[in-house]
């Protein structure tokens, strides 16, 4: 029941982002949504992601975003614009796409199970045993992207 309540709270906070126009209010709503998701991960027994969600998303990414919002002019004209001209046609396409996908997602019914608790030691052991290659692949890709970005910047500065 608490899981259901937190889910509804997360959706309400996310919906409020659509109605706020000021970026700072939107950022606060997003922080609340992310906090709700962190709580949800904890309630589902996934403590690793609960800590990661709060530390990385709320503590790093959103604080960084709030600093940037404070840096910029809040009187920008784009803030006051409600929605673009493409909004309604895009909503229509989204609705049709949703109708096509929904029957397949509806078949995803889960058996009633108790959530498996994911502690740090269990996660670390499992992660390094089975998923080390994926992690290394992601780190190599990030390294390549960083080298590419630095190369482009140096070429432009010449």
């Amino acid at each position, binding site marked *: 029941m608490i899981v259901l309540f937190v889910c509804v709270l997360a*959706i309400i906070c996310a919906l409020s982002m659509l109605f706020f126009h000021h970026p700072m209010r939107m950022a606060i709503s997003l922080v609340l949504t992310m906090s709700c998701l962190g709580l949800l991960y904890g309630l589902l*027994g996934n403590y690793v992601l609960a800590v990661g969600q709060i530390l990385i998303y709320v503590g790093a990414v959103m604080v960084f*975003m709030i600093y940037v919002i404070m840096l910029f002019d809040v009187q920008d004209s784009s803030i006051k614009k409600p929605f673009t001209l493409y909004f309604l046609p895009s*909503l229509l396409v989204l609705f049709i796409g949703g109708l096509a996908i929904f029957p397949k997602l509806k078949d995803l019914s889960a058996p*009633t199970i108790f959530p498996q608790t994911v502690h740090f030691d269990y996660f670390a052991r*499992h992660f390094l045993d089975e998923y080390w290659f994926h*992690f290394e692949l992601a780190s190599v890709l990030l390294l390549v992207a960083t080298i590419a*970005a630095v190369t482009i910047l140096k070429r432009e500065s010449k």
Partner: protein
Amino acid sequence: MNLDMVPFWTGIILFIIGIIGMIGRTNLLSMLMFLELMLNGINLALVSAGIVHQNLDGTVLTFIIFIITASEMALTIPVVIILQRQKKSLDVLQYADLKH
């Protein structure tokens, strides 16, 4: 629908709200925030699917997405600052000449 699937559907709903906001807004910072919301929705759907199937695939993928997101924000925010300094605006419609 089973009650165990509620977090999964919450993730899907967050993703849809993110898409709607991403399409509807022209402010670059707002679009970035909706992008983050979409990523969070996907994370939640992955984790809840992993719990339902009783494996760690969703958790590991979400953990890697955390790393990618932090890197993405570290790269995106300087780009936003540079664009704002060049165009004196955060309106994405004014960046249309970037493709020429």
